[in-house]
C-alpha cells in the first residue's frame, strides 16, 4: 500500500505541475495584459492563448479531482482549511475564464473585460501562491479533520509565496509571448521577461531561505548528513537555468526563454516536493496515512495509465495545430483601437 500511496502522490504531483506550467503561462499573459503596448497587442496576446486555455485549466480540475480520488481524507482536510483562498481563486478564475468569450462579443465594454481578465488572472495566481505557502507551512489536523481556524493560511510566508507565483507566472507569460509573437509585442515581451526573470529569481531565493526555517524537519532534509550532496544538483541546475534564461533572452532566442522558465518551475516544484515528502499535508499527514482504499486506487491508476497518455498525445496535437506566431486577427480577433 505504501508503494501505491507514493505512486498516487506522484500522479497528483504531475497533475499539479502540468497545471502550474500550462495555466501558469496563460495566467501570466493575463497578468501582463494591462502593460501591453497597445490594444492590437492585447488582441494578439489573447489569441495566443485562446485555443488552449481551457485544456490548461482542466489540469486544475484533475488536481482537485485527483486529490478526491486518491486522498479523500487529504481533500476533506485541505479544502476547509484553505476555504477562503480557494474560493477567492475560483471567483477569480470565473472572471478570467468568461473574458475569452465575452470580450470577443463586446464592443463598447472591451475595457471592462480587459480589467476582468487582468484582475482574474492576478488574483487567481496570487491565491495559488498563497495556497502553496499555506500548505508548505503546515496545517493543523486532528484525526481525519482540519482543526485550525478560517485564517490560519494567512502568514507573511504565504503572502511571499503568493507574490512569488504572480511574478513567476508573469515570467512564463512573457517568455510564452516571446515565442508566440513578433515585432513590437515581442520586443516588449523581452524587456518584461528580463524584469520578471529578476523578480522570479529573488522570490525563489527568498522562499528557499525561509522554507528550511519553517520546521527543523525541512532543514534536516536539505542539510542533514550528506543530503546536501545528493540534493546539490537542484540549486546548481537552477543557477544554470537562470543563466540560460537571461542569455537566451538577450541573444534573441524565441523558444529557449520559455523552456528555461518552465525548467525553473520544474526545479522549484521538485524542491518543494523534497521538502514535504512523504507528507501530503505537512507537518504530520503522510501519503500512506490518508490514501484511498486499495480498490479505488487501483481502479483509478489503471484509468490514468490508459487514458493519460492519450490525453497528452492529443494535447500535443492541439498545440501543434496552433503552432507559429499568433496574430492580431483570426481566432478571437477583435478590433480594439487605442
Amino acid at each position, binding site marked *: 500500500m505504501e508503494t501505491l500511496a507514493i505512486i498516487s502522490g506522484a500522479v497528483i504531483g504531475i497533475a499539479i505541475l502540468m497545471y502550474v506550467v500550462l495555466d501558469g503561462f496563460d495566467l501570466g499573459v493575463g497578468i501582463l495584459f494591462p502593460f501591453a503596448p497597445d490594444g492590437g497587442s492585447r488582441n494578439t496576446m489573447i489569441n495566443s492563448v485562446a*485555443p488552449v486555455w481551457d485544456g490548461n485549466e482542466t489540469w486544475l480540475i484533475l488536481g482537485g*479531482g485527483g486529490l478526491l480520488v486518491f486522498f479523500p481524507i487529504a481533500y476533506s482536510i485541505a479544502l476547509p482549511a484553505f476555504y477562503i483562498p480557494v474560493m477567492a481563486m475560483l471567483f477569480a478564475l470565473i472572471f478570467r475564464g468568461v473574458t475569452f468569450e465575452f470580450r470577443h462579443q463586446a464592443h463598447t465594454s472591451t475595457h471592462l473585460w480587459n480589467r476582468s481578465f487582468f484582475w482574474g488572472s492576478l488574483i487567481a495566481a496570487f491565491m495559488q501562491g498563497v495556497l502553496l505557502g499555506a500548505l508548505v507551512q503546515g496545517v493543523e489536523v486532528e484525526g481525519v479533520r482540519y482543526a485550525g481556524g478560517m485564517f490560519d493560511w494567512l502568514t507573511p510566508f504565504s503572502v511571499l509565496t503568493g507574490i512569488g507565483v504572480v511574478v513567476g507566472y508573469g515570467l512564463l507569460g512573457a517568455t510564452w509571448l516571446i515565442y508566440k509573437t513578433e515585432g513590437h509585442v515581442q520586443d516588449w515581451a523581452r524587456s518584461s521577461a528580463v524584469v520578471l526573470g529578476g523578480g522570479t529569481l529573488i522570490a525563489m531565493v527568498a522562499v528557499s531561505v525561509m522554507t528550511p526555517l519553517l520546521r527543523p524537519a525541512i532543514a534536516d532534509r536539505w542539510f542533514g548528513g550528506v543530503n546536501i550532496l545528493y540534493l546539490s544538483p537542484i540549486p546548481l541546475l537552477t543557477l544554470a537555468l537562470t543563466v540560460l534564461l537571461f542569455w537566451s533572452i538577450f541573444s534573441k532566442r524565441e523558444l529557449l526563454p520559455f523552456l528555461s522558465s518552465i525548467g525553473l518551475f520544474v526545479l522549484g516544484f521538485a524542491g518543494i516536493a523534497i521538502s514535504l515528502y512523504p507528507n501530503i499535508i505537512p507537518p504530520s499527514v503522510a501519503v500512506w496515512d490518508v490514501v484511498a482504499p486499495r480498490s479505488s486506487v487501483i481502479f483509478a491508476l489503471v484509468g490514468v495509465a490508459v487514458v493519460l497518455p492519450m490525453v497528452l498525445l492529443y494535447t500535443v496535437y492541439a498545440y501543434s495545430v496552433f503552432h507559429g506566431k499568433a496574430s492580431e486577427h483570426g481566432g478571437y480577433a477583435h478590433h480594439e483601437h487605442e
Partner: protein
Amino acid sequence: MPPFDAEILARLQFAFTVSFHILFPTLTIGLAGFLVFFEARYLRSHDEAWLVLYRFWVKIFALTFGMGVVSGLVLSYQFGTNWSEWSRVTGPALGPLIGFEVLTAFFLEAGFLGIMLFGWQKVGPRLHFLATCLVAAGTAISAFWILAANSWMQTPAGATLIDGHYIVDDWFAVIFNPSFPWRLLHMTTASYLTTALVVSGISAFYLSNGSNREVARRAFSVAMWGMLVLAPLQIFLGDQHGLNTLEHQPIKVAAMEGNWETRGGVPFHIFAMPDQKEQRNRLEISIPYGSSLILRHDPDGIVPGLKDVPVEDQPPVGIVFWSFRIMVGLGFLFLALGLWGAWARWRGTLYDGVWLRRLAVLLTPAGFVATLAGWFVTEVGRQPYTVYGVMRTEDSFSPTVTGASIATTLVLFLIVYGGLFGAYLYYLTKLVRRGPDPLTTRETEESPEAIRGARPGLVVPAE
C-alpha cells in the same frame, strides 16, 4: 437556530451553484449533437446554408460552453470546501467517477474545442468535423460519469461503508447502479429536447420577423422533427424512471404524488397544498385512482405514503410535489408543440403558421425550466440524505467552516453569478439579433476552399 446555520447555508449555496451550472451543460450536450448534424449535412451536400447554420450556432455553443466550464470548476472544489465529511466518506466510491469524467471527457472537450472554434483554416474539413464529433462525444461522456456519480448517491450499490468510508467491492455495480441507466437516458433526452426548443424558438423568431429565412427554415424544420421524436420519448423515459424510483426510493415517489398513507386506489392530485406539519394535503383537486393507475397500472395498486417514515426522514414535500407537476406539465406541452409541428408540416404550413411560431418562441427557455424542475424533484426528493438512506445531509457538510464564511461566499455567488448571467443573456441576445453571418463574396467566389473560417465576420470587420 444560530444566526448563521452552516448546514442550511451550505445547502442553499450548493443548490444555487449546481442549478446555475446545469443550465449550461443542458444546452451544450444537445447543441453539440445538433452541430455534428449541421456539419455532416454540409460536408455531404456542400450546401452552404448548413455551413452558415453551423457557424451561427457554434458561437452560441462557445458562449454557453465557457459559462459551463467556469461554473463547473467551482463545483469540483466546493465538494471539499463545503462538504468535507461527504467527500471523505464517499470519496473512495465517487472520486474515481469524477476523476474519470475529467480524464475522459473534460480533456477531450477542451482539447478539440480550440480546433472546433479556431481551426477551420488550420485543419481540413474532415479533421474539423472529427473535432466537432469529439467535442460532442466529450459532452456525452461527461454526462455519463457525473450521472453515474449522482445516481449512486440516489441508489448506492457495489460498496460497503466500513470505518467511516466506503470501500468498493464491485466497480461495475457502482457505475451501473440501479437508477443510473434511466437517469442517464432521461437527462440526455432532456438536453436534446431543451436544445430543440432553443433552436426552434430562435428560428421561429427569425421566421416571424422575416430575417435569415433560408437558414431559419432549415433549423426550424430540424428542431420540429426533434420535438416530434423527443417529446414522446421523454414522457416514456420519465415514466420508466419514475417506476424505477418507486422501486428504490419509494418515499421520494410518495412526495411526488403528495400521498401520505400507504394504500390502494390512490388518486392523482392535479393540485394540492401539502402541509408537512399536519401530515396531510389542503385544497386537493384529484383524478380518482390516477396515482395507482400510473404507478401500478391497476386502480387498486398500492402507492407508498410519506407516513411510512418519521417526519425527520421525509423530504420537503411541497418542493418535490410542485417541481414534479411543473416538469410533467411542460413535458406534455412539448408533446403538443411536436404534434402541432407535425400537423402543420403535413398540411404544408410549417413555416407560415403564426400561432405555431408564437408558441415556439414562447417555449424557447421552457426546456431549462423543465430540466431544473426535474433535478429539484430528484435532489430535494433524496433529502434528508446525501447518500440515500445512509448518510444524512446534516452529517455531510464541513464542520470547521463557519456559517459566516459560507454566508459571505453565498452572497458573492449570488452577485457574481447574477452579473454573469446578465452578461451571458446580453451577449446571447446580441448574437441572435445580429443573426447568422452570410458567407463573404471572397469565400464563395474567389476561393471556394476558403469556406472554412469559423468566424468570418471577425477576419473582415464589417465597418
